[in-house]
């Protein structure tokens, strides 16, 4: 059990090593036509990720996005590390 557990853990680490996941919601999900995407971009800032996403999907500036990393709002200076989950947060409209 112990040995197998370790083996599985190592495999999982290999999968996520150097990867971050980006989540899309609402209008951004409509734009990208996907709910999430993974990138090999460890060590870059949120701003650099955002610039890359703009290259992929066109101008995102008009959406007035905020950013969350691991479910907390962050500034664009936040540095991303392996395994982080980034969310693009369009203006919220609950209630």
């Amino acid at each position, binding site marked *: 059990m112990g040995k197998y557990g370790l083996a599985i853990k190592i495999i999982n680490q290999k999968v996520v090593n150097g990867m971050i996941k980006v*989540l899309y*919601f*609402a*209008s951004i*999900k*409509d734009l990208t036509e996907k709910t999430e995407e993974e990138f090999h971009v460890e060590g870059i800032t949120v701003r650099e990720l955002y610039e890359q996403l703009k290259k992929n999907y066109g101008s995102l500036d*008009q*959406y*007035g996005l905020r950013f*969350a990393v691991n*479910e907390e*709002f962050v500034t664009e200076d936040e540095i991303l590390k392996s395994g982080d989950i980034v*969310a693009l*947060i*369009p*203006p*919220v*409209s*609950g*209630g």
Partner: protein
Amino acid sequence: MVKKFEITDQPLEERRDTDKVLNSSHGAVTTFTGHVREWTNGLRTEYLSFEAYTSMAEKKMEEIGEEVKQKWKGCDIAIAHRVGLLNISDIAVVVTVSSPHRKAAYEANEYAMERLKQDVPIWKKEIWDNGEVWVGHQNYKPKGSERND
């Protein structure tokens, strides 16, 4: 386990949330229910669709709950928000505050609702017979109408 801060795709019931917060030292409960409105600025909504970043939304609602309990000692609070397709007059959100006395229950309830509208990652899409819009997302405008949300 009782979940006081909840995103759900099931219909909301005010009484269920009251039961989550009420205890014998509380003499007041305020319940705010937000409902799907048919008419907004002259446009007729057919139905609404709500989407949430569920895990973060529940976490943020819990943080709002902590703020409320810090500001109004002795209060307890529950927040439930529905996601998925909602029809006219369906309940989209329930904010319930219980407190020893009524003043705190009124104030804390309004505060929690304002905070929810600022920071909880939930999105509303209005669907009309001739278009749809994610509310507050400026790039999505229906044809032939001018709106300010």
